């Protein structure tokens, strides 16, 4: 049945549909509604309003190891705090989903205004080298769909998958029939705690025994985990491409920015990645072919633009939309002035 749903609500409902049965979080604008919705679903999921962001992600890690699909949600300041747990989950290979509803930073910044400033943090926020899967929907229906895909990717890759939203999308209400969205939640892939002798550690370890002074083993381990992540990510390459045969300029945008610029598809081609990382190299190359200019429109100072440039190895222009305000007219004017 069609009804009015908002972004944060769709994430909460999508998580339940995916089979999530453990949720821990700490209140933060503009992500709190995910908590509010799940707090009322006690019959379907364990719910913990934790003492802080760090506790909530670590509880999710513990719960995931103990056999439940786990979720934690936050915004930028909390996402910074959760990086410790994200690194631990990568090292211990624990599936879980972390939602970051982006607001303007750095620091407390502009709490109620939307941003896309956490793109690089989502991929590289925790210390050390790791490969992250990052998804970023751009409509309420997609929030539901890609929350479930995030859980599937987490199970397949046994890693913490990041689902990005922005404050705009999280608070946006749309009429949508969630039940009509085709989804196939995947089963758990990790045997729950209680097997009797496994050891999960944040140290570099081989079969549960620390190998902290062995550079050769580190390289072997890193290559294995990276290959695993890239192989898994092949099943999670989501994007949309609106080719305009008359256009010589390709616009690239994601999340709320892609929604705002959609009316420009009569003048330009538009590529919208949903999978932000690992970067959609083949799709980007195919979309770029035949276009003289490529412009990334994003609500940050060129974070994804740099990533695109690394893949396409050519000049990429950017329209950074900063400060939490985005309008089609402004973007149209700035495109004409480029």
């Amino acid at each position, binding site marked *: 049945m069609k009804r009015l749903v908002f972004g944060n609500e769709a994430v909460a409902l999508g998580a339940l549909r995916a089979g999530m049965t453990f949720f821990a979080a700490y209140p933060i604008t503009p992500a709190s509604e995910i908590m509010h919705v799940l707090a009322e679903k006690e019959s379907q999921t364990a719910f913990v309003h934790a003492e802080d962001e760090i*506790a909530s992600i670590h509880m999710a890690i*513990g719960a995931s190891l103990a056999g439940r699909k786990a979720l934690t949600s936050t915004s930028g300041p909390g996402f910074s705090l959760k990086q410790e747990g994200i690194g631990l989950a990568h090292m211990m290979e624990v599936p879980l989903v972390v939602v970051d509803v982006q607001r303007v930073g750095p620091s407390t910044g502009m709490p109620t205004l939307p941003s896309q400033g956490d793109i690089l943090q989502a991929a590289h926020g925790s210390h050390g080298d790791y490969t992250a899967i990052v998804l970023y929907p751009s409509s309420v229906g997609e929030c539901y769909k890609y929350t479930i895909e995030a859980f599937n990717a987490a199970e397949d890759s046994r890693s913490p998958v990041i689902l990005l939203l922005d404050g705009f999308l999280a608070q946006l209400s749309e009429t949508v029939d969630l039940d009509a969205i085709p989804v196939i939640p995947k089963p758990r892939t990790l045997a729950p705690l209680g097997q009797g002798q496994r*050891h999960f550690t944040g140290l570099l370890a081989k079969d549960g025994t620390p190998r902290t002074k062995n550079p050769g083993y580190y390289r072997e381990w890193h290559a294995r985990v990276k290959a695993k992540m890239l192989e898994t990510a092949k099943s999670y390459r989501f994007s949309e491409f609106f080719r305009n045969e008359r256009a010589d300029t390709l616009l690239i945008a994601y999340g709320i920015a892609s929604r705002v610029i959609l009316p420009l598809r009569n003048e330009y081609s538009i590529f919208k990645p949903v999978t932000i990382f690992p970067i959609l190299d083949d799709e980007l190359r195919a979309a770029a072919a035949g276009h003289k200019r490529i412009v990334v429109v994003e609500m940050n100072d060129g974070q994804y633009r740099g990533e695109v440039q690394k893949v396409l190895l050519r000049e990429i222009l950017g329209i950074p939309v900063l400060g939490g305000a985005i309008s089609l007219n402004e973007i149209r004017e700035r495109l004409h002035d480029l």
Partner: protein
Amino acid sequence: MTYKDYIKWHRMPTTWCPGCAIGTVFKQVTFALADMAIPREELVVVSGIGCSGRAAGYFNVDSIHATHGRAIPVAEGVKRANDKLKVIVFSGDGDLAGIGGNHLIHSSRRDVDLTVVCINNGIYGMTGGQMAPTTPKGIRTLTSPYGSPYQPVNIQGLITSNRRHWYARASAFQVLHLQKMLREAIEWKGFSFVEVMAFCVENLGRRLGYKNGYEMLFKLKQDYKPVYKPEGPLKESELGVMKNDGQAS
């Protein structure tokens, strides 16, 4: 089942220094587990970071070695996800009462059914001997070269400030008392905390003039006495239990 079934023998020897107290406490925990005949499949041990944090990997059960200070929230997640598991946190004072202090306050307040075994050696041992939140006032360490200017954290006070609570102080010398405390703590439904007074000869004791682990162990014997019916909060020299099942006093 004997205590030997709870130890991963292929991981021996441990990383702990000769003369260290952690091994003693580790073994007493395995004694208590064997005594209570807890099946290994129903047991999970979680540690944080530091010398004591290495203990999780030596227990022959499913175990987690979490990040610094986060043993309690990881353990809470495990317990809330599967109530059938016995969850024991084995970690150090710096990990639990320093960087993890916020979690200690709140998990104990929520009275989550965990047993926390805290090795209190009064120092950050693994990182070389820096001042811990438990370092007694006046003690010189690498980061308090003129003597710690602060009173140590009062863990008993923190735990017992919750109406429902279970707190015990034990020591690595009085092992029979320690074992009794561990058994009681594991049996207690709710948050139980065993503060085990220990020592670090390598990165604290030797700088204070102790020649070996035995001298520090003997100091524990001199400093602490078990008290079976404490009157009011445990005094500094007393070992024993402070518990309340939640009734208003």
